[in-house]
């Protein structure tokens, strides 16, 4: 005999879960009582359910395993919504579990009851509302399979209180989810290989799917074989080590000029594990206009969704890249296809950034540039959303996949800090940095005590311009500087707030002091917030204006 709540704990353990995040409450107390007995599992108590979900999401992105968040019914579960949607948009395997009122009470508007089942339908890959032990057993088993298979994504389970308390022996699962990895035909692989081998200016666009698939090695090998530059989406940042000579950084609305140039000049684009998001392509009709396009994605519904490729290949990035590599090796007698030659070096030189190390207040781009010196290859960087995120995308050099963790699809301000805590929970011996803005910081800084309480020291670097910087930038450039509701005034002192939460804090507007602060933070190993006052109206460039093509890139005011 087993209770529903004990069954949940057993199933989580069976699925390799060691760390969970969340907040308890009335409807989930039986489950927490069984978690109390699970001494081999760690539960990290968050300060708000949204942050708890970002922690689970950060954990999932850093490890590739499922991140688990457990909360109560009603407001606990509605607070999950942003975090779960964030995981969905970025294909992150988060398992969210919420208590629910007892089944006879569902639908009667009892205390802390909300229609979470319907709410979650549009935000998850799948969700369950088990009504008995069999369905509970089935829901958890399938949740992990669904979350992690194919294109990953979040799965939510609402567990009514009486189901947690039910006792019995669960029988066979009511259904078993099965997923078959698509494997493309030899004909398609051969056709793609010939197209690539014959291209003069091939470019590879690498998306988050390459990271999820673990295909970085195959990506580098193919790029080197073809002498093809690699650009990435924001989600694909780090799929190619950005210090590699063929890596040109992110392409898109705030992509690097070099990345934009090669895409626009290419005659063949191999897009892998990416979905032609508007933030990556700008106006789609002007994206790589001279190029034939090959689109590889594990999700069949992505191919042809926005852009009809010349060749669509449904498959796992690792397998497809590896097979294309092998086929091209046979096609090419002596290595190399692409004829970028000197043009690539020229483009590289033209897209180098200049940094001002003496400006006071500091330039945000320089702050991120300096941060590179303190991030070891094994460390992690998370970001918030807005200007800070784009400075990070442009000026942080990611050395490996999963090193750079950011909210791409949903663009959730407040993601980075709790995500950093989740990453740290998975990798206690690594440094985890969060590149934040002051607007984002205040959205989830209430989670700082979690880092302090659980000895999960993270380092938050705030690019503080006392503005909602990206909105201000848009208002400046596209609304004739009519600033509306973007001035954060700066009366709240981030350093003092952070100290109040138990963190170490530094406040500076100079690069020299920033270096000292980072040095101390890294050395001391305590949760630290470095509040860097930066130039207030600095804009992130390059920038593609909304609804413009990549050719219309702005490089300055």
């Amino acid at each position, binding site marked *: 005999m087993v209770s529903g709540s004990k069954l949940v704990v057993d199933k989580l353990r069976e699925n390799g879960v060691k760390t969970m995040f969340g907040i308890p409450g009335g409807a989930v107390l039986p489950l927490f009582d069984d978690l109390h007995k699970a001494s081999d599992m760690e539960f990290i108590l968050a300060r708000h359910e949204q942050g708890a979900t970002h922690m689970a999401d950060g954990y999932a992105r850093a490890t590739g395993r499922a991140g688990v968040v457990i909360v109560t019914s009603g407001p606990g579960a509605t607070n999950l919504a942003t975090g779960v949607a964030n995981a969905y948009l970025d294909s992150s395997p988060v398992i969210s579990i919420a208590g629910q009122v007892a089944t006879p009470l569902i639908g009667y508007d009892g205390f802390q009851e909300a229609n979470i*089942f*319907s709410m979650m*339908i*549009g935000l998850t*890959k*799948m*969700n*369950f*509302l088990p*009504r008995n032990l069999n*369905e509970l057993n089935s829901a958890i088993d*399938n949740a992990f399979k*669904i979350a992690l298979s*194919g*294109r990953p994504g979040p799965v939510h389970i609402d567990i009514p209180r009486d189901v947690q308390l039910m006792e019995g022996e669960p029988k066979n699962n*009511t*259904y078993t*989810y099965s997923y078959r990895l698509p494997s493309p035909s030899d004909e398609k692989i051969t056709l793609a290989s010939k197209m690539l081998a014959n291209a003069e200016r091939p470019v590879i666009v690498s998306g988050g799917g390459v990271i999820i698939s673990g295909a970085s090695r195959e990506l580098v090998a193919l790029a080197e074989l073809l002498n093809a530059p690699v650009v990435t989406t924001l989600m694909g940042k780090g799929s190619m080590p950005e210090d590699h000579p063929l890596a040109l950084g992110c392409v898109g609305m705030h992509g690097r000029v070099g990345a934009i140039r090669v895409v626009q000049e290419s005659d063949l684009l191999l897009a892998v594990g990416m979905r032609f998001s508007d933030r990556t392509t700008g106006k789609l009709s002007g994206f790589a206009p001279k190029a034939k396009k090959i689109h590889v994605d594990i*999700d*069949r*519904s992505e191919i*042809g*969704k926005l852009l009809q490729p010349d060749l669509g290949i449904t498959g796992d990035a690792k397998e497809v890249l590896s097979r294309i590599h092998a086929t091209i090796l046979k096609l090419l007698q002596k290595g190399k296809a692409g004829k970028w030659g000197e043009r690539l070096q020229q483009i590289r030189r033209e897209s180098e950034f200049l940094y001002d190390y003496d400006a006071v207040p500091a330039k945000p781009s320089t702050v991120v540039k300096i941060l590179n010196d303190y991030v070891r290859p094994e460390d992690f960087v998370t970001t918030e959303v807005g200007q800070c995120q784009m400075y990070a995308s442009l000026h942080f050099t990611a050395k490996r996949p999963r090193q750079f963790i950011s909210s791409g699809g949903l663009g959730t301000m407040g993601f980075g800090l709790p995500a950093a805590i989740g990453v740290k929970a998975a990798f206690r011996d690594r440094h985890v940095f969060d590149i934040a803005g002051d607007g984002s910081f205040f959205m989830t800084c209430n989670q700082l005590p979690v880092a302090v309480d659980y000895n999960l020291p993270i380092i938050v670097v705030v690019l503080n311009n006392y503005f909602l910087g990206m909105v201000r930038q848009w208002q400046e450039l596209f609304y004739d500087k009519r600033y509306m509701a973007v001035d954060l005034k700066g009366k709240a002192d981030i350093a003092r707030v952070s100290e109040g939460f138990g963190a170490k804090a530094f406040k500076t507007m100079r690069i020299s002091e920033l270096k000292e602060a980072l040095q101390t933070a890294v050395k001391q190993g305590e949760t630290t917030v470095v509040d860097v006052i930066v130039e207030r109206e600095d804009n992130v460039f390059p920038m593609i204006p909304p609804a413009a093509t990549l050719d219309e890139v702005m490089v300055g005011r």
Partner: protein
Amino acid sequence: MKKLAIDENQRFLVLRVLNMPGVMERICSIFARRGINIDTITVGVLNGNSSEISLTFSLPQEKFGNIVKILEKNPCVLEVKIGSLESDVIREAFVAILKGCDSKDSDHIRIKYRAKTTLLSESRLLVELLADPRMVNDFKEEFADRIVSFSRSGVMIHALGRSES
């Protein structure tokens, strides 16, 4: 040549889905968030674990392919079959009350549409029609200005076979 009663954007899908609460909502939300109006929907339980949903809706060809792929990848959906309203829908049920009818109308409808008719009070006629969509559309077109109320069932029976898996 007679005008086609079924427009080229009309779609007919049969989904084999998990038989569990919320599946209908999940399927319908796929359509709703893309602004696609479902014209008819019928559901039946096949066995303890799976149900069948028949859907008709209107969607241009260039968007139809993507919807099919999205349905296919949904964990609730076990199988998607694409049918033709023209050739695969064998019967729909259509029940209507017409105004201004007499026994001649009743005979005409019985003979032309093979419908069951019942004269009600005040010249109203109850029509119970079990027919293919083309005939249902023809009937609606012919009596458009006399229909007082009606109900259309959606696909009652179709010719798409079920795979054995």
